[in-house]
């Protein structure tokens, strides 16, 4: 055994322990860094050849990962985002269709009751004038509700556009890292920081869309959507495009001129999926239901009113005017024959019963509880409250499920952190341990030095 070897062992040990302490300090310093995966290197005993002891070395640190939990966490995050993303839209819709003062229902009631009151004094003009006021108030409320719901569309389109821009940006970054990583790791060792960054990008991406990540032997990761469409493969990233209610994918960079492929927005997940669902289902659906109620009410009243005779003896008049079922809540207005012309309102369908006859006024008043054909047998209040109920249920469910998906995400995050996260207790006790080793190594070098001196003095 040579003394130089002794020196060697000491020197190696000093280096090894210094490296180990460096790594533990690095971990400890990053205890608060979100998405940081702890590094672990191995202290390995060294030997020259087969049997000559050479001390210890500090092996290549690697990230300690739990990819399974990471995948589960991302999936849970996608789910939570897909639910949370709809909540603001549903809350706004709820406020529009179910305002504090009751909204459309009492105003519809006022118009129908206005006819009921007309029956008690069908020869009079005051009741007709006040009925026209109630009807105009109702018309205004239909217009307002329609406009408010419609105005939710544009911001949703813009949200989708900005979310898609973020997704495309992340896809490009991942593709970029794939390239860098393959090059960096080709010389051996692990590019830990690049891997950390890529893992964080995947975490971020999963908030936007539901993705699957697959790592290949050369270290690059390919990322695809739930539907199988690829977002990133190797150093190529595809481009997503959002338009009104639709999502397209333009192929990966190698074929930029290929036609964009239409994606199924219901299988996208994440915040982007939520935005599309809010646009295509929640807002569009609410608008359709509102129009349906407006159309059914106007047509049901008109059908009866046309049979009637106004105080001026004219018949065949509409009470409301609508331009068809599409956009009915927007186009509904007082008919020309009655607007500003109270005498044009009919209370009886029998010209001989003028002016006091009330049969027709009663029939319209009775629409309060009557099932309407145009609402598939539902009454007007059932139609309205059906819309409120649908939105309320969707919202309550989304809030509920979002909370539990969020809990799930936290659970997987903890499981993942149990493997990947930094525990200060652990790192600090390691540092203390390595410090001992360092001291011992230093002492060893001194001992070797003294032994060397002893020998030299013998000469």
């Amino acid at each position, binding site marked *: 055994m040579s003394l130089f070897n002794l020196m060697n062992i000491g020197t190696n040990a000093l280096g090894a322990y210094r490296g180990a302490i460096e790594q533990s300090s690095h971990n400890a310093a990053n*205890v*608060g860094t*979100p998405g940081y995966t702890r590094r672990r290197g191995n202290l390995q005993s060294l030997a020259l050849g087969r049997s000559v002891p050479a001390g210890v070395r500090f092996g290549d640190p690697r990230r300690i990962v739990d990819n399974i939990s990471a995948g589960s966490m991302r999936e849970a995050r996608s789910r939570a985002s897909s639910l949370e993303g709809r909540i603001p839209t*549903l*809350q706004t819709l*709820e406020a529009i269709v*179910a305002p504090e003062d*009751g909204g459309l*229902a*009492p105003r519809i*009631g*006022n118009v129908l*009751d206005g006819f*009921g*009151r007309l*029956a*008690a*004094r*069908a*020869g*009079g003009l005051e009741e007709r004038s006040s009925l026209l006021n109630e009807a105009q108030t109702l018309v205004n409320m239909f217009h307002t509700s329609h406009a408010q719901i419609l105005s939710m569309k544009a911001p949703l389109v813009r949200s989708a556009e900005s979310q898609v821009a973020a997704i495309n940006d992340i896809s490009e970054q991942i593709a970029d890292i794939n390239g860098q990583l393959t090059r960096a790791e080709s010389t051996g060792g692990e590019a830990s920081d690049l891997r950390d960054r890529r893992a964080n990008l995947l975490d971020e991406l999963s908030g936007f869309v539901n993705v699957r990540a697959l790592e290949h032997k050369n270290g690059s990761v390919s990322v695809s959507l739930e539907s199988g469409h690829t977002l990133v493969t190797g150093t190529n990233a595809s481009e997503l495009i959002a338009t009104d209610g639709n999502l397209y994918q333009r192929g990966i960079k190698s074929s930029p001129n290929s036609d964009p492929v239409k994606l199924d927005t219901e299988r996208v997940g994440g915040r982007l999926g939520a935005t599309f669902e809010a646009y295509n289902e929640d807002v569009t659906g609410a608008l359709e239901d509102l129009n349906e109620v407006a159309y059914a009410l106007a047509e049901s009243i008109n059908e009866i009113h046309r049979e009637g005779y106004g105080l001026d003896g004219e018949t065949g008049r509409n009470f409301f005017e609508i331009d068809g079922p599409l956009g009915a809540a927007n186009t509904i207005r007082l008919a020309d024959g009655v607007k500003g012309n109270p005498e044009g309102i009919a209370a*009886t369908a*029998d010209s*001989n019963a*003028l*002016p*006091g*006859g*009330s*049969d027709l006024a*009663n029939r319209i*008043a*009775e629409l*309060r509880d009557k099932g309407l054909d145009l609402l598939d047998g539902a009454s007007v*209040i*059932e139609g*309205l*409250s059906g819309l*409120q*109920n649908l939105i*309320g*249920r969707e*919202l*309550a469910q989304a*809030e509920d499920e979002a909370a539990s998906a969020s809990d799930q995400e*936290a659970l997987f995050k*903890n*499981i993942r*952190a*149990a*493997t990947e*996260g*930094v*525990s*200060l*207790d*652990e790192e*600090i*006790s390691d540092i*203390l341990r390595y410090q001992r080793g360092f001291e011992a190594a230093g002492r060893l070098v001194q001992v070797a030095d003294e032994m060397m001196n002893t020998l030299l003095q013998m000469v």
Partner: protein
Amino acid sequence: MRITEQHLFGHQTRRLGKMRAEQLKLQEQVSSGKRVSRPSDDPDAYARIARIDFKTQGIDSYTQRVEAVKTRMTVAEDALFQMSNILVRARELTVQGLNGSQNEGDRKLIAQELQGIREHFVQLGASEVDDQYVFSGVKSNVAAIAEDGSYQGGPEGALVEVGEGIKVDVAINGGAIFDGEVNVIGVLDDIIARFEGGDLESGDDMLVSLQKAEDQVSRGHTRIGARLNRVILAEDLGEEIKLSLAEERQSLADADLADTISRMLGLEQSLQAAVQVSQSSLQPSLLQIL
């Protein structure tokens, strides 16, 4: 399982956050007194509440119509009452005039008074409420009795719904009252003419006709009285329904304050405990030894 710093702090934050959200919700319930203020609070309860409110609004509308109908019926009733009275007076005068002790001059005076009664009767027949003639049926813009005493109004046919399924006709067919078996004005005119002309051979038929007239008016009075009763009944029924609807609404919508407040207090205690525990569990760390 390894416990990391992020785990510890993250867990704390989540737990406290949830408790505070729950606390906020309970506070809102206590301060507003409502358990259900939005569909998402309880979708099915909200739907039922919306229907109750719609129905209640309908009943309030019945109340307004009840007032209008009551007024018309009351005015009609009063007029008919006065008509009965003046017909009684007419009969008295006729009996007086038929008495042999009366001379031509006396009868002419009686004829004059009867003429006054005749005109008063026509006026009462033209009773109106808010420009609508009460005894003219659906022809509410025309006085019921014409100059010649004939009925120039219309038939009935102005049903008004004053309660659920309760309809009352606000149009009164004066013809049945003034021009039915006998024409009241015709009877009076006849008597006036005969007293002025001095024809007294037969007087009993006058009294018979007057009696018939009185009976006609009295029957009309009874019919209108019955209508008025139906209206009042409908009003009471409406009040009852409103009350029970209000009760149902309360049980659905309102917060049980005692329950909510005690839950809130329990939650406050849990929050305090959680905060204190977190303080003590986060402290010990090897950092203090390093």
